[in-house]
């Protein structure tokens, strides 16, 4: 994978996005995700009401890849149900692991499809999946 496929305008734009970069006032789901070797550190906060994700807050810091992936995820899951969010996480991780390859199945991921080829850059896979694993953990913990 070439660098210009990695640092695309889309990924750079999302990596700088401040839309969800705020602490929520009373989050009922909270989870921290870290990649200890590279220092990526994400704090995910969710406000869930009646099974619906009303609001997403993202704190922490990390590389452009981890930040862009987290911002795309936040945009995607806000306003969706917990069940849908879980399905998105499964699909995203499946896309990275190449177990989900069907383009139609991937369409639900919208902008996050930008990371489809990240597995060609193994050193950066952890960055791209960090927020999605954190989301899965957050939603599982509350069950």
């Amino acid at each position, binding site marked *: 994978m070439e660098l210009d496929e990695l640092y695309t305008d889309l990924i750079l734009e999302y990596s700088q996005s401040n839309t969800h970069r705020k602490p929520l006032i009373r989050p009922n789901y909270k989870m921290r995700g870290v990649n200890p070797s590279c220092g990526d550190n994400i704090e995910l906060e969710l406000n869930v009401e009646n099974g619906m994700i009303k609001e997403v807050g993202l704190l922490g810091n990390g590389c452009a*890849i981890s930040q862009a992936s987290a911002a795309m995820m936040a945009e995607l899951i806000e306003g969706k149900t917990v069940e849908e969010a879980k399905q998105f996480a499964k699909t995203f991780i499946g896309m990275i692991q190449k177990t989900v390859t069907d383009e139609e199945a991937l369409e639900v991921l919208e902008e996050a499809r930008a990371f489809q080829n990240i597995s060609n850059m193994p050193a950066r896979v952890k960055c791209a999946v960090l927020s999605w694993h954190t989301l899965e953990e957050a939603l599982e913990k509350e069950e």
Partner: protein
Amino acid sequence: MIDFSKDFPLLQTTDEMGRRLAYLDNAATTQKPFAVLDAEADYYKNKNANPHRGAYDLSMKATQVLESVREKTKRWLHVPEDGEVIFTKNATESLNLVAYSYAMNAVSAGDEIVLAVSEHHSNLVPWQNVAKAKGAVLTYLYLNEEGRVTKEEAQQKITTKTKLVAIAQVSNVTGYVNPVEDIIEMAHKVQAVVVVDGTQGAPHLFVDLGKLEADFYAFSGHKMLAPMGIGVLYGKKKLLEQMPPFLYGGDMIEYVEEQTTTFAPVPQKFEAGTQNMGSIAGFGAAIDYIEKIGMNQIRSIEDELTAYLIEKLKGVPHLTIVGSDSLENRIGVVPFVIEGVHPHDVVTIVNKDLIAIRSGNHCAQPLHNFLKVPATCRASVYLYNSKDEIDRLAESLKGVRRWLGYGA
């Protein structure tokens, strides 16, 4: 400068564009010269049997390799009469051996364990574990504005309550040489035992354990040209003799009865099971290689490269060296950040130019919290690096911000 890279096969390989790797991550591990690789292969081709076991010639040959490398290590480190060298897997195992066999028995509730906030996790987490188990207190030496451990800070923190001091000879993040001689003197005045993590010291500095008077000294072979899987623990015999074994099993015993066992004397007491003989043979060859060049020459090569590296990094716009750019009391490990670009992205981008540097927190999260940076980039040199490689790094770093969408 003599080009030692020709002795290192990995550094001679080229990619499809004919470029060679600029390997500048020597604080993580070093490349291996032919002499080390040959010694390892020679052991398995010509000398392989289980040492200390058989009475036949081949087993004696293997024993001879083990014991001659031990003697060589002692000579190289100027180990005094009352000290001994134990082979382990790496510095981490050496430090855990001290934590479990010494500290777990010597440290009690209310005692203080003093360590620097800049310690590598391997010289921090084991002591945290001891403190938790024994109800002891961890006391940190904090750093001055340059990021250095100072004598004054040590003087403040080392008290009559101090039972053990754990300190790196050289920080793996900042490259600063710590005032270990002073710290040892202060600690011994209050009867505290000192564990020195020599992982970044032994490969780069002249070490005289007779003069240093550390109670324990640990390091890994793989950061000084030897294969992975061989580490050293030096300890004072009077401490080692009173410590219980760390691992129990074969080769560390005297008499084994159904209910009781008596243990072999030091060092065998701490070398349970079959040792990593190929790596031990390679480690012996690494010492020979280093001794042949001489620590003085290695120091002067590294000092020249370090000065050049710092000068070149200072010429990269938007780059900040973390800590200080002082050349005093430091080795060739230089941490830095580039404004607006996460270190992990920096590493990915310079990697396209076949340059290997490290990013992250370098197994020192408490230090990064203290410095208030989430992560850093780190370039580290060794005797086979060249100014040309540093030029390539600086050029590549100048282009980093463009990839992230900045003007320059």
